[in-house]
């Protein structure tokens, strides 16, 4: 099981802050994960319709969409950051 966390408008559109998911073996990279999640329902499809803008962190570190998710304990999806 992997913990998925969602923030800002990704969280609002998906409708939850986090969930535990059992990811199938064919979901190997961050890019694969975004495609797979889009098929999980309308909220997911709406949140992830422009996958290029989605930022991803694995185990609290920024990664790009080609990164492998093997061994990920926690994966977070969120829009570009606007702190500071």
């Amino acid at each position, binding site marked *: 099981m992997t913990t998925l*966390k969602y*923030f*800002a*408008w990704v*969280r609002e559109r998906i409708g939850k802050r986090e969930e535990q998911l059992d990811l199938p073996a064919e979901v190997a990279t961050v890019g694969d994960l975004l495609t797979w999640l889009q098929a999980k329902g309308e909220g997911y499809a709406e949140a992830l319709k422009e996958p290029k803008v989605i930022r991803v*962190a694995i185990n*609290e*570190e*920024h990664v790009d969409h080609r990164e492998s998710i093997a061994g990920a304990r926690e994966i*977070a999806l*969120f*829009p*570009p*950051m*606007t*702190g*500071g």
Partner: protein
Amino acid sequence: MNASISPTIRIQAADFDLAAEIAHLTAGRTDIGAVVTFTGLCRDEAGALTALELEHYPGMAQAEISRIAAEATVRWPLTGLTAIHRFGKIAPGENIVLVVAASTHRKAAFEAASFLMDYLKSRAPFWKKEHRADGSEGEWVEAKSADDDAAARWRQR
């Protein structure tokens, strides 16, 4: 380089006290020549906003700002470095973020503070949502490409 300096990083809902943070870095020391501070405040966009709501990713916010601060201590000879980022609902005129960089010389203090802010803007996991004065649903603040450009310039050096 001061391999030994350990940046202070805090993620908190409460306001901060800039003078106390400077005193914390400088008290009892006579080797510091320059202290640069940056304070980021909430603006009301000409009256359109009543507040900003800052959402954050707690564990990662602390970890990511610590990574950025650690890089600053390697790149510049600092005697002290502090970063404090608030979350939650913040009214116009209130503080959002503080960076304090201390060094023997002014160039290092200016550059380290500027670097830390540029990276905070584009890499620290915080998101701002508007609370609008007219009662309409507030928007999430959009990231600016200028902020990514500002962070990128430190990689070209």
